[in-house]
């Protein structure tokens, strides 16, 4: 078909027909937007429910206000005391501290080692670079079970497991971040992709001025990839904070339990006071939600960066 025939076709439509078609399309568009709003409400509702349940009395949990007699929209009694009671039931501040003891070195170590490695894969020519990069990235797809037992045996042999070990046996949870292992290879990939978008001419100019790789990395690359570093920091904080599989294996005493583990234990032991469990669930989720709200822009950018090039 050539262009002329389209023009003829459209000319055949009368004005009324076109506006009717337009109106129909607009109606469909509006309907779809309404639909996506409804879906969003459906997705947001459990979040609301989590906060709501953390604030109500036990009776409002079993008979929520919608189904109560007479029905209402908001719970009658708001009990902030659920939070303090919940915090008393687990050793909250100890566990918060435990979470931070793991998370802070994890995030900082992750930022340092992934950016350094990413720089090597993006900018330095060294033999077998492609092979090493492919191997490192392929660990992303590896099921964690296949390395589980030997890793445990290795850490035990090194004396890193158990509450009497260095850092109370927390080191096996931090070490993977220092060596871009167990899923952290993803950040190497992400940072490398970001570095590839930065023009090589910039470092070439610096090199002519006599700068080596270390200088280029610290003074030129790091400032330029700051947005990507923020993304890595946010993601690795959330990964580490939410970590459960390795925590339940390596953290072997109540003294070193993190908040996620504490929440798991209390869910298993006490099922009766759900409002207190929910209060704790809100508290454990709060840092992640807060970080998300602050860094929303970076999250979206980071996900785009990682997903598209995949």
């Amino acid at each position, binding site marked *: 078909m050539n262009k002329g025939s389209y023009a003829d076709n459209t000319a055949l439509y009368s004005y009324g027909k076109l506006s009717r078609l337009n109106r129909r399309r607009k109606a469909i568009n509006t309907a779809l937007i309404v639909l996506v709003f409804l879906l969003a409400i459906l997705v947001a509702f459990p979040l609301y429910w989590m906060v709501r349940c953390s604030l109500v009395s036990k009776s409002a949990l079993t008979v929520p206000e919608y189904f109560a007699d007479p029905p209402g929209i908001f719970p009658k009694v708001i009990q902030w005391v659920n939070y303090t009671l919940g915090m008393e039931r687990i050793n909250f501040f100890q566990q918060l501290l435990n979470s931070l003891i793991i998370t802070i070195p994890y995030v900082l170590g992750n930022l340092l080692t992934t950016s350094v490695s990413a720089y090597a894969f993006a900018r330095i020519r060294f033999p077998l670079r492609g092979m090493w990069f492919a*191997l490192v990235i392929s660990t992303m797809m590896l099921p964690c079970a296949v390395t589980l037992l*030997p890793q445990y045996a290795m850490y035990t042999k090194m004396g890193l497991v158990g509450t009497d070990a260095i850092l109370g046996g927390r080191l096996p949870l931090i070490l993977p971040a220092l060596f871009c292992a167990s899923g952290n290879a993803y950040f190497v990939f992400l940072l490398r992709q970001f570095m590839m978008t930065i023009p090589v001419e910039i470092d070439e100019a610096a090199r002519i001025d006599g700068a080596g790789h270390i200088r280029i990395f610290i003074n030129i690359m790091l400032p330029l990839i700051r947005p990507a570093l923020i993304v890595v920091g946010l993601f690795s904080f959330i990964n580490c904070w939410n970590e459960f599989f390795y925590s339940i294996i390596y953290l072997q005493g109540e003294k070193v339990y993190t908040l996620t583990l504490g929440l798991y234990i209390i869910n298993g032991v006490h099922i009766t006071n759900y409002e207190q469990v929910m209060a704790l669930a809100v508290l454990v989720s709060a840092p992640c939600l807060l970080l998300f709200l602050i860094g929303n822009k970076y999250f979206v950018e980071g996900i785009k960066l990682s997903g598209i090039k995949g």
Partner: protein
Amino acid sequence: MQTSALTKRSFGGRKNIRGRREGATGYLFAFPAIFGFLLLTLYPMATSLFYSFNKIDLQGNMEWVGLQNYVEIFSNPSIGFLKSMQVTILYAFINTFLIIVFCLVVALLLNRKFRMRNLLRAIFYLPAVIPMISTAILWKLLLQNAAGGGLINQFIMKVLHLPQLNFLTDVRLVFVVLFAMGLWTCGGTIVVLLATLQDVPRNLIEAVELDGGNAWHKFRYVTYPTIKPVLFFQLIMCIITSMQVFTQSMVLSSNGAPNRMTYFINIMIYDHSFKQSGMKGIAAAEAWAVFFTILIITSVLFYFQGALRPDSDRPKKRRGGIK
């Protein structure tokens, strides 16, 4: 050694020294990643393969038994490997299907201009950052029986006037709980797909419109080919992560109740490695069997992705025709 071999090939004279120094610097910078790969991935993988051929007792003494562990996990139903594999694959496939369809639909719906679009995107993504433990506890509460505070069952009883559903104890309905959690936390995929949809060429969509194509044609011949690589990557990652479901199942019940329907492979391997005694060799064999299964599934998917390529090339020819 490798360094000198390569530099000899690519550089000469003075440059040789520089190239070698460059190579050494490269290895120095990449050290964390390479060392991490060797120490925390390659060595444990090889060792766990070795474990899987051994019988390991409580003291950690090993006895070479060849393929016996593998024979046992495939032939002895009391170990629970085959059932665990079945429920895991069932869960992973349905979960991935639901997630991909849901995310694609939401991304297509969000891919139009309207106010509060970014807010909606944030809402869809928000559940993905919450710890899985919190998510699982929340959904467990939502789907509990009415007396325990389960909102959905209260709704079923008081509004629909139907008997309540035992989501947590029924062998089939327990999957509803898991799928609900999966769908609730898949916001990352929505954001990725939505971002990819920005790359769909506007002029081609308009060309299909001019050709008299409907929404399905636009999707089939323009949108789908553009987002296909990303969609495929998301599919693979989704299957791999779904196969490794752990936290959700641990919160529901740490022993796979009801009737071992939630005794997923990671739960089983965790159980055999650390809770049961003298089953470490079996656990290693199971881990390698899982690794192979994932390898096979991804290879098959990659094969079909390649096999379907001529199909997705077709609209390109049409594109030429239109212009």
